[in-house]
């Protein structure tokens, strides 16, 4: 690895504003993705706190019902479309070419376009707050007829246009990932030697490619209904309101896997490195990922069990089945830790947070797969608990594991471990305080998306608790931001390979030079850097 010291002061995170605005380097674009996503994470988080503040006590104290609906709609839209999906694409952008030993993405300029569509789409979406009638307010699902022209104004149109741009960004990004992975792997990097993160990005890209255009078609039909007198979803004129839900969820259920598979990939990078063992059952893990992706296309209607318009047994069966590959992953992760020598740095802590929270998010999802139980729990706070355990407890903890893991590679400096652990504890405690009580609220019968509830309903204490938890999560961002600020300037110098990593990104300098590598180690397994350090341990 001596060859990697050729760039002692590689300026990958320096450079002027012009350089950042015009870059086509996948590493810089990846970092732009991360920063942009974190900005929308902050905006979405503030909206979440507004919602929590209003729900802490019965009665309308701070905002009115109309703004409440805008707040939770835009919270979800920012978090799903402008935070989770893009930040995972950002990790993919940064890490995939490095992990497969490529100099860059296949289409660097399209890569830049994919990124720049995001802030544009996000700004369009957010500008709804300035429109008369406010931003989109029919929930992130925007079910018609409620999202139709009779009930909501320009904000919804801006939401649609923004989301079409974001979807286009995803599609272009997916094409780029697929061509990169299929065509630009380094010699020796066969598909079954690819790091798991690259595999999850591959499967995710297929999901994006197949499902996001369908969302675009749903949005365009909605836009035509809203603005040009169309009747696709207008029951008063022969349209079909449930049709939108079918088309929408054909995208949005695979989208759930788009939002969680790369986070699983990050965890699958972190666990082997910090337990100093290979990933247990690499091939089983790959097959499970592919299986989740394939089954992901046949479960969309489990979001629609209560519509009375879908064939329940089929979708229930598929939904149950998808638990199997997910369970395989969970067991493989635990087997990876088993008899390892765990090094509890911050990335591993977040990975443990992921395992615990995702376990709960998987199990409480099984309740909704049992259709009659779903009749009781659908659209209650139970579902809010479920989706946050998967997407926050799962994906967001995975994202922070990734940030702590790759920050040294991206910047050349380590993040502070003490602040990282403080952030983890605050986030873990705050998260569970916020979302665990929502199971109970849902079981008691509190529907989601209500601005207010009666003081006699018996929901006040748990809502107050959830609000305190929400602000604890908000507080956990303080040590994080402080950590990033301080470490960017004064963090300990990382060196090429601070964690004793397995994959190729640790075989180049930190930050890597343009085109990534001057020399690649021999690739004979999914852990080329480990092999270079210790010799190979088993055939693959």
């Amino acid at each position, binding site marked *: 690895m001596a060859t990697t010291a050729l760039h002692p002061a590689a300026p990958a995170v320096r450079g002027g504003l012009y350089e950042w605005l015009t870059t086509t380097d996948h590493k810089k674009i990846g970092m732009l993705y991360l920063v942009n996503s974190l900005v929308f994470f902050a905006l979405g988080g503030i909206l979440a706190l507004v919602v929590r503040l209003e729900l802490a006590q019965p009665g309308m104290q701070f905002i009115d019902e109309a703004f409440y609906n805008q707040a939770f709609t835009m919270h979800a839209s920012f978090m799903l479309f402008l935070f989770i999906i893009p930040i995972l694409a950002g990790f993919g952008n940064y890490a995939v070419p490095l992990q497969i030993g490529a100099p860059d993405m296949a289409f*660097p300029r*399209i890569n830049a376009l994919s990124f720049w569509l995001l802030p544009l789409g996000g700004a369009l979406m957010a500008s709804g707050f300035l429109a008369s009638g406010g931003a989109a307010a029919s929930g992130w699902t925007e079910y018609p007829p409620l999202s139709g022209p009779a009930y909501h104004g320009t904000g919804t149109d801006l939401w649609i246009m923004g989301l079409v741009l974001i979807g286009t960004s995803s599609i272009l990004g997916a094409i780029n990932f697929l*061509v990169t992975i299929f*065509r630009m792997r380094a010699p020796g990097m066969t598909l079954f030697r690819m790091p798991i993160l690259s595999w999850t990005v591959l499967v995710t890209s297929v999901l994006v490619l197949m499902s996001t255009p369908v969302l675009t078609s749903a949005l365009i039909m909605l836009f035509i209904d809203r603005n040009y007198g169309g009747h696709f979803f207008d029951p008063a004129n022969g349209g079909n309101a449930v049709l939108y839900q079918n088309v929408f969820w054909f995208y949005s259920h695979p989208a759930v896997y788009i939002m969680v598979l790369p986070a699983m990939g990050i965890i699958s990078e972190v666990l082997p490195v910090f337990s100093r063992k290979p990933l247990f059952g690499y091939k089983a893990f790959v097959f499970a990922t592919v299986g989740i992706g394939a089954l992901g296309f046949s479960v969309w209607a489990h979001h629609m069990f209560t519509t009375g318009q879908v064939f329940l047994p089929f979708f229930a069966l598929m939904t149950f089945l998808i638990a199997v590959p997910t369970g395989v992953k969970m067991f493989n992760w635990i087997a990876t830790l088993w008899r390892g020598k765990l090094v509890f740095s911050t990335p591993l802590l977040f990975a443990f947070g992921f395992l615990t929270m995702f376990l709960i998010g998987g199990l409480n999802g099984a309740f909704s797969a049992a259709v009659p139980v779903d009749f009781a729990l659908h659209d209650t706070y139970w579902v809010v608990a479920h989706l946050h355990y998967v997407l926050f407890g799962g994906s967001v903890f995975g994202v922070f594991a990734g940030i702590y893991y790759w920050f040294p590679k991206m910047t050349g400096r380590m993040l502070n471990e003490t602040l990282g652990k403080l952030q983890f504890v605050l986030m873990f405690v705050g998260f569970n305080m916020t979302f665990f009580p929502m199971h109970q609220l849902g079981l008691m019968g509190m529907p989601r998306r209500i601005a207010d509830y009666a003081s006699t309903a018996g929901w006040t204490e748990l809502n107050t608790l959830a609000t305190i938890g929400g602000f604890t999560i908000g507080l956990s961002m303080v040590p994080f931001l402080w950590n990033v600020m301080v470490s960017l300037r004064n963090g300990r110098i990382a060196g090429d390979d601070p964690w004793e990593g397995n994959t190729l990104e640790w075989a180049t300098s930190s930050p890597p030079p343009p085109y990534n590598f001057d020399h690649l180690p021999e690739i004979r397994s999914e852990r080329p850097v480990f092999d270079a350090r210790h010799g190979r341990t088993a055939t693959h």
Partner: protein
Amino acid sequence: MTSDAAALTTHGETHDATEHGAAGLGNPVLGMLLFITSEVMFFAGLFAAYFSIRASYQELVNGQLVHLWPPAQFADTLKALPFVITTSEGHTVLNVILPATLILIASSFTCQLGVNAIKRDDRTGFLRNFGVTLVLGILFLLLQAYDYTVLFGEGMGLGSTTFGTTYFTLTGFHGAHVFGGALMLAVVVYRGMAGQFSARHHDMVEATSLYWHFVDIVWILLFSVLYLLPGVKA
């Protein structure tokens, strides 16, 4: 750094195609195939909506809700489809859709001839065929525009029942894709006149032709579904 970025672009888009995958598809061609996959899914969404709406369309006929298609108000206008339209004044107007369909199918052949020509390094043949393809594409768009004006004249629009909504959305988005394809053809012709393509370097030509074939196939499907699939009478 900008020169780095430019160098990187070249590196990523062309060198790697030849370095790693001389035997397989070029990166732009693979990228275009994947893009077409996404476009297929986009049209699949629209088609799914069309069939769902068509199957559930009901109208009051003699006090009974019955399923029919197209709606009664357009049944007379569209009776003789696909070849002529009877307007409300009783005139018959040539429906231009069949000639337009033939033109688009023909353009797919000329497009492929162009690709074959550039593979033989026959730049003139390539330019001639792509030029013809572009002209045929524009002609198709003009015919479609004429078709729209006739139908608008009959009072049919996006808001005329779900029939109008689906008809104009499907054909309109296809038209937009033809327009996009024509722009790509124009760029290829322009670059071809500058001598940028050869038997070795013609990934963009191939990608454009794939897209044009895709647009053509979507139209054949649309034509079959919108014009040839028999309607349901009350």
